């Protein structure tokens, strides 16, 4: 399913409708702070309720428009979901698992080297695989970048690195 297709819009409309309903309900049951004797028009749930209803209306309109025939979306772009998946995997591994568990500079060096080498390797022809010189260049680049960024934030901006 393409992300810019009517089918995707229908699924999104359902998700947005549920989100709008949740915001409306959340605003309705939110504490009205009666014990603090606030003005009833200034209850904290007022705007979330309004926004929730508006989102539900827009979601219904989106579902309605997705059901109508539309003009073509033009030529499909050349995209690669496998490249996307690998990028997401490496980024998630680094941001959600490595940072905070490993010292920042080594984690960063491993991430940059792994990311770069993976794509250089998989996108090169079998006959022209990257040689030792390329690998060493990537390792030097990732190490220098990682320790450079770490030093900049630690000593330049006085940040306690994760």
């Amino acid at each position, binding site marked *: 399913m393409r*992300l*810019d297709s009517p089918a*995707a*819009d229908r699924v999104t409309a359902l998700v*947005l409708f549920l*989100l709008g309903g949740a*915001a409306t309900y*959340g605003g309705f049951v*939110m504490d009205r702070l009666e014990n603090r004797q606030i*003005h*009833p*028009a*200034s*209850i*904290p*749930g*007022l*705007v*979330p309720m309004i*926004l*929730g209803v*508006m*989102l539900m209306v*827009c*979601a219904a309109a*989106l579902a309605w*428009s997705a059901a109508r025939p539309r003009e073509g979306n033009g030529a499909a*772009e*050349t*995209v*690669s*979901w496998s*490249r*996307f998946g*690998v*990028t*997401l995997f490496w*980024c*998630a591994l*680094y*941001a*959600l698992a490595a*940072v*905070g568990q490993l010292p*920042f500079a080594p984690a960063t060096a491993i*991430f*940059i080297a792994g*990311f*770069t080498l993976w794509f*250089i390797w998989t996108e090169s022809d079998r006959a022209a695989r990257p040689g030792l010189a390329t690998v060493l260049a990537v390792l030097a680049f*990732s190490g220098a*970048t*990682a320790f450079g*960024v770490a030093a900049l*934030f630690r000593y*330049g*901006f006085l*940040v*306690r690195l*994760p």
Partner: protein
Amino acid sequence: MDGLAQFVIAIGHLATPESLFHVAWATLLGIIVGALPGLTATMGVALLTTLTYSLDRDAAILSLICMYVGAIYGGSRSAILLNIPGTPASAATTLDGYPLARQGKAAYAMGLATAGSALGTLVGILLLVLIAPPLAEIALDFGSFEFFWLAVFGIVISGQLAGGLSPLKGYIAGILGLLVAMVGSDGIHAHVRFTLGVDALNGGIGLIPAMVGAFGFAEVLTVMWRGKAALVSGLLGSDRTIPRLLDLWRYKFTIARSGIIGTLVGIIPGVGEDIGAWGSYAIAKKFSKERDQFGKGSMEGLTAAETGNSAVVPGALIPALTLAVPGSAPAAVLIAALFIHGIRPGPMIMLEAPDFVYLVAAMLFFATIAITIYGLTLTRLFVLVLKVPREWLMPVIFVLCVIGPYALTQRIFEIWVMFAFGLIGFVLRQMNYPMAPLVLGIILGDLLDKSLRRGLTLSNGELDPFFTRPISAVFAAIVILSIVAGMPPVRRLAGRMFGSGMRREVER
């Protein structure tokens, strides 16, 4: 005249070696960020905000403004050489820039784009100096009722224009942004909302992590997802870079008109540089004697697009400074940066920091000089920049996306927020939801929430003042008319009456 005198004084204030050093590196970095497809001005400004915490106020804001101006201008490099806009602002530039490059006039096209950008920014600076102070004075009369409508106006107009052919998606993006702003302590009673028991959300979702995710990480994913672009090579050496004065004089009306259109588009909340470029291009085509050349390598078309998008930058700063309502997505980040550095944008700015508006105009002026110098002298360097492989560049960008938001509060939670917004931003963008209304919603959510509830408290629950006070009535009328005009049956009717929309007019 007093404003212009203050502007000249501000230029003198900034003419120090230290300031010029910041102008030099930040503008060059901005051009490089803008030139690389996938890296946007918003991302550049957001990431640089995290790198300028430790600078003093003027140096930090100067660097950010130079990054903003440089990135918007830099987008023209890849638009001309790759047929891919480096930033969305340069989409209209591709229409004539790339055909010119294929005709062997890439260097001259880049020179012309440089001149157009510089002149557009100068027109915008002039209007900034003239419009911002009286606008701030008018805004001093705004009360809760007016600020409520101002926030609604921003979301609706931004959704309408940034959504293009689907304003509904623009409205949805705006509402989602407003809902994001509802998370955390509310602005009146400090009641904690929608945190789902997560203590780290009590203070709300930070704008910088959200922006870095939505514009930085989402861009990394998008760039790696898409195929590589083909560079037009070997076409630089045969032509001059410095535009002929005759060409600029021939397009003087186009430059002036595009500069004014760009600035006015910039003033409209959350609309942005791309609309400024498309609008200027469409109007230039309509009035041009060489309209049949548009889309085939028209120098006038290229000049109009570049003048229009660059003029949006000063325009977008007018409401950002005087109303705290950003005219574009990068201006939204700049507002956050202003708060970080102790400047409170809004109607009080002319009372609390009256010189600051002129200082910003002077910063824009220095950035303009820098893009002119770089643009006319470093053409070949920018071609080299476009050859940097994405698999080397993107992990470095992502590292900055991770460490930048973390550095703000030194909490790992900010990295998670960045990551979540990156994924959401990627999906929404592929589904054609514009990002500008989302950002504007996050910025304006607190203002809308507080203004509505304060207004209702003042009127004892009555809605009348929201519709009967003069400024409120004008805002309300514009908002209602905009929503009605965005409805599909009305759009179809208008389309039959006036022809197709702006972009179709351009493409025809």
